[in-house]
């Protein structure tokens, strides 16, 4: 009896405290909103936003709704996160492997990179790239083209835009390549199981991926043209690029800083993963006659990936969350567009901040759930 009370009482008290706090907040919020004459609700989302956004992946202007502005911000956030994740993974893997290099100079350089970039606040790095490094770039009219087609200027990076003809055929060719690769993989597996023969699946796949799209170009009527950015004089002092694809400097600075910063953490994950495999595993694999490549593919990587992937996913999440620093250099991400501009215009603090937080929370929770499931499915079975 006594122990039952001791178990239930703290729970009731905590629950009561939580309910009271929330009740207090809602009560105050109600009064505050009444005083200001605001009605709580998400109806404003369908209203006309009447503000512009500098950079958008989808069609958007002031006549669209707040909901569309939200989508613009979200897509911009996801764009930064996506590019950042790719670049940071590449750098992270290279640096992580370099950290284990027997070459003293390479190991030290990699260590220097890691210690340097991870001990400086990310925001400072973003500011540095945006306000100091990129500002040192030439004006549009003074920029020298890189390889004749890229223009890196203070206004951003201008690259050729792809102009496709019969793009659908190109896609079909890629789909065909993917399908045939799957078929060949299955066939190779069966062949291996029944006759022991091994096909060079990797080279065949790579070949198919190149040859089929190539055929589409040669005989399928697909053509790819480039629209090269051309400098145009607006007035005596103002120049701009016409055509091509302009990547705003905010996006460059943000992605660069995020990628360089997160790569240091990914590098450490990679290093820990590879170091986590005991020397004995390698020796045992060698002693049964596997070649170095086979050892890497069949013994080291499957084990190392199990150690590397969970913390790395965590870093991807951090990168996505950190992309919210975009607001500091006015890159129109979710926080700037929605929790910034839209909030200023509507004054709906509770609704907008809660939607923003809920968005990030859903991304985080979805990825963690996926990760937990993945971890369980690959966990090495033990007693």
């Amino acid at each position, binding site marked *: 009896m006594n122990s039952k009370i001791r178990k239930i009482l703290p729970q009731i008290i905590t629950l009561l405290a939580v309910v009271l706090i929330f009740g207090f907040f809602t009560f105050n919020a109600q009064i505050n909103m009444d005083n200001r004459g605001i009605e709580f609700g998400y109806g404003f989302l369908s209203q006309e936003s009447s503000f512009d956004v500098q950079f958008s992946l989808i069609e958007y202007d002031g006549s669209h709704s707040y909901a569309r502005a939200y989508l613009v911000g979200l897509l911009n956030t996801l764009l930064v996160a996506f590019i950042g994740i790719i670049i940071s993974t590449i750098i992270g893997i290279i640096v992580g492997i370099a950290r284990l290099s027997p070459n003293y100079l390479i190991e030290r350089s990699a260590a220097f990179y890691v210690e340097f970039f991870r001990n400086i606040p990310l925001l400072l790095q973003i500011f540095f790239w945006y306000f100091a490094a990129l500002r040192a770039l030439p004006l549009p009219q003074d920029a020298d083209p890189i390889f004749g087609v890229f223009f890196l200027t203070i206004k951003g990076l201008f690259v050729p835009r792809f102009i496709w003809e019969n793009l659908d055929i190109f896609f079909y060719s890629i789909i065909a390549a993917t399908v045939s690769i799957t078929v060949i993989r299955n066939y190779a597996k069966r062949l291996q199981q029944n006759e022991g023969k091994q096909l060079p699946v990797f080279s065949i796949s790579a070949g198919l991926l190149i040859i089929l799209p190539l055929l589409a170009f040669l005989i399928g009527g697909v053509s790819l043209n480039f629209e090269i950015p051309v400098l145009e004089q607006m007035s005596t002092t103002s120049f701009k690029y016409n055509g091509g694809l302009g990547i705003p400097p905010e996006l460059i600075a943000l992605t660069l800083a995020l990628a360089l910063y997160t790569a240091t953490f990914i590098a450490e994950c990679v290093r820990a993963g590879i170091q986590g495999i005991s020397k004995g595993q390698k020796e045992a*694999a060698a002693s049964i006659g596997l070649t170095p490549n086979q050892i890497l593919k069949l013994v080291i990587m499957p084990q190392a990936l199990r150690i590397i992937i969970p913390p790395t996913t965590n870093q991807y999440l951090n990168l996505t969350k950190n992309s919210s620093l975009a607001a500091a250099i006015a890159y129109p991400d979710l926080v700037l567009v929605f929790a910034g501009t839209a909030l200023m215009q509507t004054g709906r603090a509770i609704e907008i901040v809660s939607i923003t937080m809920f968005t990030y929370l859903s991304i985080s929770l979805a990825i963690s759930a996926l990760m937990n499931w993945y971890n369980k499915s690959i966990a090495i079975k033990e007693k």
Partner: protein
Amino acid sequence: MSDKIIEMKNVNKWFGDFQVLKDVNLDVNQKQKIVVCGPSGSGKSTLIRCINRLEEHQKGSIIVDGNELTEDTKNIEKIRAEVGMVFQQFNLFPHLSILDNCTLAPIWVKKMPKKQAEELAMNELKKVQIVDQAKKFPGQLSGGQQQRSAIARALCMEPKIMLFDEPTSALDPEMIKEVLDAMVSLAKGGMTMIVVTHEMGFAKEVADEVIFMDEGMIVEKQPTKQFFANPKNDRTKLFLSQIL
């Protein structure tokens, strides 16, 4: 008849400034069983690790089954495939089931069809009596079972020589016997074996010759009976008195 399968001539090896092997000479004939013993740090593990070139010797020559081991040995994998090795720490691959551990090398090195490899593996697992555990993962087995699986894994490559690097020293006492039994039956089957161990009972039962190493040198090499009955060297005597 008794052609040499391993020939080591004046093998020397250093770890930095420390010389682990000093002018080691050793010939092993086919079907011969040799037990290597000696205090820790005497170079016995290094000696057998040199035979499948997990360690590189720096001076002298090692010839395994007619192939000399040098830097230029391109097909070192081929030689390793003929030399099975069992480690102190088992070193099974934890992400693969016991059966997959055993079939990995036959499939990838010998290009054997999977079915055939599995039959072979089950056969070898039967010899070490863990057929019923084949689908389990290494982490689910006891130390003794793991070590027997490791023996089976090495046997699946149908090696000509088996090397054992202190196979029982990481095991709990009650599990040592099951591993030794597996090794004894392997020896009775006519395998060429070099075993680094302190299990003198095992040495007496199966070894043709016993080698005593100290400070990187082969101090004594004698047929088993004489080694135990009549050791010549003082260090051997001291060692035997401590261990028996």
